[in-house]
């Protein structure tokens, strides 16, 4: 099957590969910010335990939000304003609630790991987890919704692009939030 003169495979390859390259570049930018606080990372026990979970949580929640919204649009619901408004509102509240609860659990897990395994008590790790996640959600949720909508309206497949986009933008924003929180709290 041909879409815009390209086969579906070529279109998928180009869209996924380019978005992957862009997102990796963004990930490396996030890594540069992270490298800026290596001295503090050494001091904060448990930050590396928190790290994969925190970044994944952002990807999971905003990735799912984007996937749900993408499916909602693909099923032809864009012109039903009432349905669209209600869908977005409920998804936003659910996402914020999930972010707060899950980030608390992540912080608690990192705290318990460091306490029981390494014998270090560091309650601040819970605060770093919750506050940095909340700060980043204020920016990431509207960004995810508007970008999915924009891609859909421009005949681009949100499924190919939003995964990498959400996680890479999320990485930069999350790491900046962590850097800010570490700076404020430590």
């Amino acid at each position, binding site marked *: 099957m041909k879409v815009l003169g390209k086969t579906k495979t070529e279109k998928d390859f180009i869209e996924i590969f380019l978005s992957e390259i862009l997102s990796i570049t963004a990930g*490396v930018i*996030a*890594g540069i910010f992270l490298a800026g606080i*290596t001295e503090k990372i050494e001091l904060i026990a448990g930050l590396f335990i*928190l790290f994969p979970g925190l970044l994944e949580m952002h990807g*999971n929640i905003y990735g799912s939000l984007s996937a*749900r919204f993408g499916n909602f649009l693909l099923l032809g619901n864009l012109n039903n304003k009432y349905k669209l408004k209600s869908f977005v509102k409920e998804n936003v509240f659910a996402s914020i609630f*999930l972010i707060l609860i899950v980030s608390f659990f992540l912080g608690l897990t990192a705290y318990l*790991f460091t306490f029981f395994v390494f014998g270090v008590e560091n309650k601040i790790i819970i605060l770093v987890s919750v506050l940095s996640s909340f700060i980043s959600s204020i920016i990431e949720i509207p960004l995810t919704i508007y970008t999915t909508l924009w891609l859909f309206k421009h005949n681009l497949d949100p499924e190919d692009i939003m995964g990498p986009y959400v996680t890479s933008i999320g990485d930069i924003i999350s790491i900046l939030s962590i850097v800010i929180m570490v700076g404020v709290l430590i």
Partner: protein
Amino acid sequence: MIGKKILKESLKVLILGSLISSLGGFALENVKDKILLFLPLVIILPALANMIGHAGIIFVSKITTYFYTGKLKLNNIESKQVMHLFFLLLIIFSLASVYVTILTIFVSYLKGFSFNFIFGLKMLITVFLTTVLIVFLVSFVAIIGWKYTIKNKIDPDDLLIPITTSIADLGSFILFSLLVFLLF
């Protein structure tokens, strides 16, 4: 209604996923001193976590759309279309692993990190093997989990993406930490 459904389907699985991912983080924490010693290993971490997330989101959302649009049947998940998607991701992520390694070393060099050919090779081996494992893990977990979600009438986007990426997180960061421990 939608919000409650999302919370009901997502909360437990996100918490479970976070706990699984934290185990991967625990592996990282164990080689923290080595990672902090080599700047490129710090810089590459978010990009690596990023790639795990992408692979999971793309694979799950694609097969879900194939199903909803009638291109995929529950009893035919190992179809040609799914295999095709697997190989597509394998090629893309292999190329991406080479790109991320070169970019990270280049950025680290600009920040004053001195490296040699052996270091570059070790870094490439570490990232490439971790990336290949990511694609295998994501596809394997997604295919098994997808059948479960569809049979139990659960939205795969809510359940499967967190679980797939968390298990991939765990496996990939354990392998990454192990390779860092052995090679650096």
